[in-house]
Each structure stands twice: as C-alpha cells, then as structure tokens.
C-alpha cells in the first residue's frame, strides 16, 4: 500500500502541494482528477522521487520513501511514466524498452514482459530498431508506457498516458491499463478523460490547487454532481 501523509512540496519558494494525503491500495486502480495546474504531475513526481518532499511522509509497503532517490523507488516497485515522456531520443526503441528493466536486469521475467509490451503496442515491433526520437508523438507515448512496464512494477504511475494518442489507441490504452491492473499491478493514474478513467478505477481523488478536495470510491465519484459538473462535462 502506498500512503502519502500530509505531503507538501513545490518549486522555488512557493508550495504547489499543500498537505496532500492519499492512499493507493495494492492491486487497485486509483485515479487522480484535477484541473490544469492543480498539481497532479507534481504529486506523481514527488512520489517517484523526482521532487524533494518538503513536509510529510511517503510510505510504500512499510518502507519510508520520502527521502529515497528515484532509482531506489523504482527498485521498490513503483514505476513512473512521466508527463513529457523523457525517452532516450537517440537510442533505439528496443534499447529504451530494455533499459526499463534496468532495476531487475537479470530477471527471467524480462523477455516475458518485453513480449507483452510489444503485444500491447504492435507498432513498436516494427519500430524496434529506430531511434525513439524519430517516432511520431503518439508512438513515443507508447514507448514511454512500455518502458515503465518493463521494470515489472507493483505500482504503476501513469501521468496522462493517453496524451497525443489517437482515439482508438486511447481506448486500447485504457483497456490495457485495466488489464494491467487486473493482472495485480496497482495503478495510479491521471487522465484527461475523466469519465473513462473513473469507469475502470476503484478509487478516485480530486485535486484542486494542491489540495485534496474529494476522495471516494470511483463509482460514487461518477455520480457526484460536483464532479460531473467540473470534470465530466455533464
């Protein structure tokens, strides 16, 4: 279980997150909703160690992570597919993906997961030898998701995974996310398409200006009139 207790953090002098507390149950799909600039990306970056925690604590399966470095956090089982992808542009798609398995590089599961990823995004099979930087925007997004999966995580953080993807692929990706989750991997997701994401989630949080303003079962959020007005366009 991932627990954030009263976490605050930010850039420069100003805080962006103000005492955020959330939990993500193992194996569950947790979705974070919020308007542009509400702090979703910042929250994810804080969990994966890309940003320093200024106050509060983070605990994952009994381990204190709020002081840990990103590489230790990946090793602990949390993979982060970041906003902006951060691929290795000059390396081939295959190398990008294989570097994803770096924390467990000698594991026998690597080939298995690699095959699964290519199954999920068949186009990457064709592009395996191309530099990642020459792929189309959407294809790069697929590589980023695939790379995160390659670390065989127990919790996968996806920051707007469908950004830039064609509608049909969005559908597929959300389907895959649900599938990944059904396979027992916990997922922490932020997604533009609130309705579709709530539909596959167990639990949801609503973030506004760096504070959690709502937390509930996903199905209940779907029915919540406030949420409907703000995020579901109803």
């Amino acid at each position, binding site marked *: 279980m991932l627990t954030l207790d009263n976490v605050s953090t930010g850039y420069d002098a100003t805080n962006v997150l103000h005492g955020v507390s959330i939990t993500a149950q193992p194996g569950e799909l947790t979705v974070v909703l919020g*308007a*542009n*600039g509400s702090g979703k990306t910042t929250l994810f970056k804080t969990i994966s160690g890309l940003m320093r925690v200024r106050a509060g604590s983070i605990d994952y399966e009994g381990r204190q992570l709020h002081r840990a470095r990103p590489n230790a956090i990946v090793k602990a089982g949390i993979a982060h597919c970041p906003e902006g992808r951060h691929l290795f542009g000059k390396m081939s798609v295959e190398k990008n993906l294989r570097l994803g398995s770096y924390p467990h590089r000698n594991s026998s599961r690597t080939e298995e997961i690699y095959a699964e990823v290519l199954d999920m995004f068949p186009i990457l099979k064709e592009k395996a030898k191309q530099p990642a930087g020459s792929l189309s925007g959407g294809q790069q997004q697929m590589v980023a998701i695939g790379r995160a999966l390659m670390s065989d995580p127990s919790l996968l953080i996806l920051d707007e995974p469908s950004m830039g993807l064609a509608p049909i692929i969005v559908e597929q990706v959300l389907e895959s996310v649900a599938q990944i989750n059904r396979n027992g991997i916990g997922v922490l997701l932020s997604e533009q398409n609130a309705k579709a994401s709530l539909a596959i989630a167990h639990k949801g949080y609503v973030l506004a200006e760096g504070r959690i303003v709502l937390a509930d079962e996903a199905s209940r959020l779907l029915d919540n009139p406030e949420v409907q007005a*703000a995020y579901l366009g109803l």
Partner: protein
Amino acid sequence: MSPMKNPRIIGTIAVIILLGLTPLAFAQENYTMRVITVGMCAAIAVYGLNIILGFTGQLNLAQGGFFGIGAYGVGLLTTDYDWSFWAAFVASVIGTAVIGYLCGLLALRTKDEYFAIFTMAIGFIIFLVISRWESVTHAHSGVNNVRFPEGGGIIDFESPVAMFYLVFAVLLVCVYTTYAIRRSSVGRTLLTIRTSEDLADAIGVRVGFSKQLAFAASAVFGGVGGGLYATVVGFIGPDSASIDKTFEFLMFILVGGMGTVAGPLLGSMIVTFLFELFQDFQAYRFIVLGPIIVALVIFAPRGIVGYLGGFVDKRNRRRRSAEARRSEHDESAPSDSAAAVGTNSEEKK
C-alpha cells in the same frame, strides 16, 4: 518602464562612470593604469564573445585567435610596414571581419560540441600560424615598438591617461551597442536562436544567416580589442593569440554574466584584479585561484550581473505580473470573444 528607473541600467552606468573616473585616482600609478587599460581591451573582446555566446548561445573558442589577428595586424603594419596606427587599426579590424566571416561560414555548419571544438581548432591554427610563420610574424620574437595612436598634435597617446580614455571610449561604444542590440529585435533574434533553433526557425528567424552575422561581429570585437591591446602594451608575442586567452575571456564572461550588458566589463575587471591580487603567491596562487574559479562557476552560474539581475528581474516580474493581472480584471470587457476564457480553474466551476 523608463530606462532611467531600471536598476540594471543604473548599475551599469554607475560602473562605467566609476571606471571612467579611475585615472583621477590612479593617473600616477602606471601599474594600475596598465592593468585597467589592458583589462578593458580584453573586455572589448569579451563583448564580442557575449554576442556569439551570450546572446546566440554558440560556444566560440576562437576568440583568442581573433584577438591575436587584431593585435598582430596593428603590430606588424605599424612596424614592418610603417603604417599609421589608425590606418593599421582599421585595416586589421576589416581583416578580422573577413577572416571571421569566412571561419563562420565553415564553423557554423557544425553544432554544439562540434562547433566548440571546431572553433577551438581554428583558434589554435591561428596561434600556430602566428607562432611559426617566422618570415611574416617574427614568430616567437614578437613585434616590438608597436606604434602609439597618432594624436594629430592634439592628444598625446603616449600618456597612459590618454590611452586609457581611447580604450574607454571604444569600450563605451561596445557597451552601448550591446545594450542596443539586446533591446532590439536583433537581440531578440539571437536570443531565440540560443533557446531553440527549431523554434526560432518556426517563427521565421533566419537562423543560419543570423548566426553568421553574430559570429562575424564577435570576431570584429575581438579584432578591435586586440588592435588596441597591441598599441597599449607596445610589444606583442604569440601568447596574445593563444588558447589561454580564449579561456581567459570565457572566464571573464562567465564571472560577469553571459548575455548581460554589464557582465563582460565587470567580469573582466574583477577577474583581472583577482589574478593580480594573487600574484604574490606566485606559482602556488592557483592552488587557491583554481578552486575560486570552480566555486564562482558553481555558486554564481549566471555570473555576478546575472545573479544580481536575477533579483531585480524577479521582483520586477512579480510586481508587473501582479499589475498586469489587476488591470486585466479591472477592465470588465476584455477585447475579443474568445478572450474572455477563464484560464483559472476557480472561475470555471
């Protein structure tokens, strides 16, 4: 905001006035005058570096070479060919411009690290030519008795104070040019290239052409600095074109602040005096100076002017953006249809 209220401009003007007054205090101290005057010659070359590196973002490591071409142009023409200083000066500046332009033509085909090392090689070739082409440059024997500028019977440039003001005047032109460029669309053009060549391309900037001009201009400043240097010191050797000069210039600009108006001047003066200050430690001064250089780069990465300017900018920006927001909200009917969009999540709910 009127320029007169801008703390950066006030600061720059204060520095310049202070510098302009130094002869009052030090006219009798040849040593101090010499160090300052030589430092100003370097500062002129550093203003050149500021254009290509500070504004345009291209790490040009040939600047020491261009400085050397300017110096040797003046040195050789006034001695071996008996030209007047002014004619020699103009000729060598034009010469540097031509050589700079041609070098730029080749060098700018490369990018990033390749550009840096390419220009380093050019600088080094210039140095090797100067130090080996005995029949023309006298190689290591150097050029002796470089002529003083002719004062036309009005000014005697043999006086260190007169020489100081000559270099000072040229320096002023460089500072003002830098200021003018920075404020104009020319400066904006170069800055876009520094940030992203692709994006600059996308908004219609003539990237290649602009880089080319910036490179040539930077070489010209190098030549001007070198030409003055030759007459100030009277004797020049190949060391005036060496790669060490380039790294010295880089140090000056980095310590002063890249892409700023006052940075090159402040950096040149401060580092020059720092080096003189530590002279007493002789060979061991670099045990202290080395780490100081490293520390400056680490702790004031944007240089002294960048560091101070950062505060000013931030304060200004904060005040101005607050102002902007206030006025925007006061105006109840923003211009166009779509402009009424609330970008603020608050308003949307």
